């Protein structure tokens, strides 16, 4: 074909676009490290969340959804975890009691992975005393 130069230009542009993540990460000098979560003194003292950490990492959103269902629809506020321990089902009074640093706990991962939970459409974050 006589448009060889045009084809070559197109090919180079295509490869440049496809490899953008590589160039961006190589030259922006950003570390690929995951964000560090800060645990409050209370969370550190408790050591474990309502369920084991591995479960909470991937399933906390479903747990919160079930809590909401239970509280709002059934009026049932007691959660019994896998170890038989009882908790008050409340985002504001249970979760945020330990993790009172939302911006350094919840938000860090959510921003890193571009997740926009709708919890905060309704829930207030308590002012720090």
């Amino acid at each position, binding site marked *: *074909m*006589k*448009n*060889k130069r045009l*084809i*070559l230009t*197109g*090919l180079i542009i*295509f*490869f440049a676009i*496809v490899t953008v*993540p*590589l160039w*961006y*990460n*190589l030259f922006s000098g*950003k570390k*690929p*490290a*995951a*964000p560090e979560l800060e645990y409050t003194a209370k969370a550190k003292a408790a050591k474990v969340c309502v369920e084991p950490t*591995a479960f909470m*990492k*991937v*399933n906390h*959103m*479903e747990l919160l*959804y*079930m809590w909401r*269902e239970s509280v709002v629809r059934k009026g049932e506020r007691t959660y019994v975890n896998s170890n038989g321990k009882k908790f008050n089902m409340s985002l504001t009074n249970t979760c945020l009691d330990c993790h009172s640093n939302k911006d350094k706990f919840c938000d860090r*991962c959510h*921003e*890193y*992975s*571009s*997740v*926009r939970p709708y919890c905060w459409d309704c829930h207030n974050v308590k002012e720090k005393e």
Partner: protein
Amino acid sequence: MNLNYLFSFTVVVALAMIAWAGIDVWGLNGLFCIAVPYVAAILFIIGFAKKVLGWADSYVPFRIPTTCGQEKSLPWIKQNKIDNPSTTTGVVMRMFFEIVLFRSLFRNTKAKFKDNYRLSYRWEIFLWVAALAFHYAFAVVVLRHLRFFFEPVPQFVQLLEKADSFFRFEFFAPFFKIGLPGVYLSGFVLLGALLFLLGRRIFLGQVRYVSLASDYFPLFLIIGIAASGILMRYFAKVDVIAIKEFAMGLASLHPKVPEGVGAIFYVHLFLVSVLVAYFPYSKLMHAGGIFLSPTRNLANNNREKRHINPWNYSVKTHTYEEYEEEFREKMIEAGIPVEKEQ
């Protein structure tokens, strides 16, 4: 049953099992998480460049557009400027609509015997609909995955995510939970369109007759990718933060094997790697080929302009004037009319 699709299906299942066994049984995390994706990327780039440069090297001595409308003719005959372009602008328009809207596929027909074995052709739009749905859904899914490669996540990716999760589906029963994290429509459109395209090949006799294993394989492979992705996002959840850390590591050439991520992720990653590596060596290369199709990207101006064959050698000619000059006397003697008497 048909050997072609059975074979492709078996291969895809085997690939998924290899990925699972490679991680969970043999513990080859480094091979499957680092070596395989890089090799796949290199194979993709080399294969893609080779194919396109090969096409660029082949001669197109004559213009061979397949036209679908009135050619440019006398001034009072209306030309179809897109379907039978005679200018570069027309060709650009034609290519644009072909690539963005699959214009030629829109004309798809199906042949069927009507009453009394009368052959009739019907307009059949669903192939076009499913193809368009598949390609756009796949594009959205691929762009959404950029969230794993950029920190901070680009604005347009976030916008895309918002649009994609506009409809909120939440269904939580004890045995079937879906809805958190938010449902992206594109993933399900992708899977649905793929299943339609596969069903078409399996259940329509004429299409099955012309389908080969290499037609089924990409379908099963992408179905595997979409299914494992959907499974991973909504059902067998995995640690997204660890995965993003891993993806960013790959992209910044400091790869690190992710820890504590479910096996389904490795299956997804391996199938994607296979797709990427397989891409340039298969029918999927129509992605590049569409731009270089001589039946599409040439203006139909065969009669308007002179196109000279690039490998023409210089032909030794003997024009009529020269001929007459040579034989004039003999021609006059024989009584053959000549143009010049002298």
